[in-house]
């Protein structure tokens, strides 16, 4: 339907805008799930699907840790173990972490935050969800084939991925599955960029958009550049495997390094695609819970933009040990990323400084993010230096580093986001006691699992080994790590229980349970079709706060 805004009688500042909405048929249940073009329904589809992906990949991770709990273990065979870590990585990155934030929360929240009635291309939006789900199912179905799923690690270095080294349909399904999620990502990016550029409410200038929306915008631009490169790399790989090509095949003059260059040119922006939206979540939660504006709002956006830009020029820091890349160039750019990330940290502290902080579950998860991402960031600075990377590359130190960034960082922030926006999505609060218990268990389990892995890496334990010699001094640390993994699993399960429990039993939330600041708290919980019946005037980046606290506007100057 076409949306038309009524012309108000008088031009008052507080004049509510009525939107004339002609309701079409309103499907329910399964039909709604399949056919809906509503950004909120599609967002929920993404959120639920990606969370299922999280649980599935988490289960694979428990399998990995069970295999490694003692040396010379035979819980799974070598081949199955390789499939476990490959699919754990692939699903976590392409199905959970990315789509959960940029497609799930992005779809649900961006139109709400900028005062738009829906996404710019609603049916296209629905299509991208189906491609995403298809990708998830196709890559997971690799487990059902004779040779099993893909087993060469989530970045599938050629020539190991060539047909002679990895025969069978599992690898093909991995390629098809990841490519489908890639296309879904490109479609979502087009959709969200268009929405942000053309569907903002009057007065919502770019520099009044919430930091979350800015971060999503930068993420989408990264996605738009990164995924086509990945798709091209996959096309070449497909030609190699099935059409007798030799792009990555060294025996016929191909270049294995080409794959690494192409893959990481996608892969490093991808890392920030997995991080920037979560920075946005943390920013929103910290500001709301501290009852203060985001400190250094413009600096924050500048930091986001520079992280986005720099992330496109650092891909080869994953390839230091190949001996075929320009070390100083990539080391300099990689180290530089620490600067805008540092700015973000100080801005987050500034946001909390002298606020009145409500220590609820959402805030605790975001603080967990801050501490763990800080640690992951520092180990990142270590790894950005080629000389130290020569020592630590592909050891468990790397594993620990990126789990501190991706799990302790992004996934914690994602869980915080669930606790924060669940009331908006369902109309009910999540249970606080269960939530805090979940946070505590997850925090302990996570650190128990991944902190010892730093030491394992320093002691020289390579990643992706299926078993290890008992005499290497790795036994105790691996045992601790595995126990931590089980505890972390329990922590996640507590949140899952909470999700179901609160859906029926949760306290009724009301429209604005947290005294929120951004526009999504201006509409009802859950929001009606096409979102807003009236918009508050938009005079800063937190219109709802301005409307609710007219005497506490943001101070200008310093």
């Amino acid at each position, binding site marked *: 339907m076409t949306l038309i805004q009524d012309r108000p009688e008088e031009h008052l500042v507080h004049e509510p805008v009525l939107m004339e909405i002609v309701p079409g048929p309103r499907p329910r249940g399964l039909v709604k799930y399949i056919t809906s073009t509503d950004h909120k329904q599609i967002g929920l589809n993404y959120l639920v699907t990606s969370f299922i992906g999280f649980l599935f990949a988490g289960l694979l991770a428990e399998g990995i840790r069970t295999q490694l709990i003692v040396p*010379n273990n035979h819980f799974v065979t070598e081949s199955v173990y390789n499939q476990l870590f490959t699919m754990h990585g692939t699903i976590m990155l392409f199905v959970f972490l990315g789509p959960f934030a940029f497609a799930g929360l992005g779809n649900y929240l961006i139109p709400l935050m900028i005062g738009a009635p829906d996404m710019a291309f609603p049916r296209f939006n629905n299509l991208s969800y189906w491609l995403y789900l298809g990708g998830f199912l196709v890559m997971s179905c690799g487990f059902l084939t004779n040779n099993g799923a893909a087993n060469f690690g989530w970045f599938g270095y050629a020539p190991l991925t060539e047909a002679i080294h990895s025969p069978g349909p599992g690898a093909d399904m991995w390629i098809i599955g990841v490519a489908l999620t890639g296309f879904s990502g490109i479609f979502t990016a087009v959709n969200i960029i268009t929405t942000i550029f053309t569907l903002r409410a009057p007065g919502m200038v770019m520099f009044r958009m919430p930091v979350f929306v800015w971060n999503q915008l930068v993420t989408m631009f990264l996605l738009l550049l990164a995924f086509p490169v990945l798709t091209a790399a996959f096309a070449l790989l497909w030609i190699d495997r099935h059409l007798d090509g030799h792009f990555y095949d*060294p025996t016929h003059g191909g270049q294995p390094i080409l794959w690494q260059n192409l893959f990481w040119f996608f892969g490093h922006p991808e890392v920030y695609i997995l991080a920037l939206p979560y920075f946005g979540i943390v920013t929103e939660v910290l500001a709301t819970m501290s009852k203060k504006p985001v400190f250094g709002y413009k600096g924050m956006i500048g930091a986001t933009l520079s992280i986005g830009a720099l992330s496109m020029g650092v891909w080869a820091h994953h390839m230091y040990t*190949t001996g075929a890349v320009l070390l100083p160039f990539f*080391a300099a750019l990689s180290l530089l990323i620490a600067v805008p990330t540092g700015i973000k940290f*100080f801005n987050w502290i500034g946001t909390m400084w002298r606020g009145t902080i409500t220590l609820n579950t959402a805030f605790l998860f975001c*603080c967990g993010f801050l501490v763990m991402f800080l640690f992951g960031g520092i180990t990142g600075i270590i790894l950005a*230096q*080629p000389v130290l990377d020569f020592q630590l590359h592909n050891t468990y130190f790397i594993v620990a580093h990126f789990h501190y960034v991706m799990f302790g960082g992004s996934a914690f922030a994602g869980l915080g986001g669930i606790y924060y926006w669940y009331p908006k999505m369902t109309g009910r609060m999540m249970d606080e006691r269960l939530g805090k218990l979940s946070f505590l268990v997850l925090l302990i389990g996570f650190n128990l699992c991944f902190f010892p892995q730093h030491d394992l890496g320093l002691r020289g334990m390579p990643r992706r080994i299926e078993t290890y010699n008992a005499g290497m001094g790795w036994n105790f640390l691996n045992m601790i790590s595995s126990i931590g993994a089980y505890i972390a699993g329990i922590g996640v399960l507590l949140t899952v229980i909470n999700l179901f429990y609160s859906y029926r039993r949760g306290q009724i939330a009301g429209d604005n349970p947290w005294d929120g600041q951004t526009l999504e708290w201006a509409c009802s919980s859950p929001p009606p079709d096409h979102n807003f019946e009236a918009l508050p005037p938009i005079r800063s980046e937190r219109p709802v706060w301005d409307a609710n606290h007219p005497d506490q506007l943001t*101070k200008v100057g310093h």
Partner: protein
Amino acid sequence: MRAVETHLLGKTNFGSPGGVTTQDHYVRQLWHITYVFAVPIGLIVLGGIVWCMIRYRVRPGHDRTPSQFQYHIPIEATYTIVPLVIVAIVFGYMYNAENHVDAIAKNPAVAITVEGFQWGWRFTYPNGHEEVGTVANELDINSNDNLPVLFMPAGETVQLHLVSDDVIHTFYVPEFLFQRDLIPGINNVVDFNVIKPGLYSGQCNNICGVYHAYMRFLVQVMPVAEYNAWYAQQPAGSITTAGVPAQS
């Protein structure tokens, strides 16, 4: 700076094995530089977070409305410029260290070809002598008896030519604090000058297929005289297969 480094951090290994090559000095120096900056900054940030959580949390009966400040340009400029300077310093040290660690000598004392394959290692010496070991000889992960051994002289520059014919492997010895990939089509060359003789274990460090975890080897670093004696005993073109009795 130097005083801080030697007094506080001089004896720390941060859990890693002490390096046994001449590169150890540079690696250790970089660790120290990084820690000197990272630890205080990390503590400041961590302290800030914890302080905010404790000091400014809402307490019952304490209804305060916070000041709605948003910008403080001097502070923001400070925490932009200071990290930039620190990054520049770290990069400077790193650049220097990198040139030493990656340097290739013109006239190495010994040049050995290290070939990785699915799944095993072949070490070829200048006279054509080969030391080979495959996963088939050692499928028990807990035994080190039948692993291929790379013999190296201590105190001399040993040049390794890293080659592979099938997939990508990585030559990695934790005690050398160094690794380099064996990439088909690209012949990497690395130099090691091991100071401390001993027996070290190494492993392939890049997923290379099913038996990746079993692709291990040993490095026997011997004093020069001992190495020369060993080398003299190896007939040109002979092959020693690990776990298989030597045939002359």
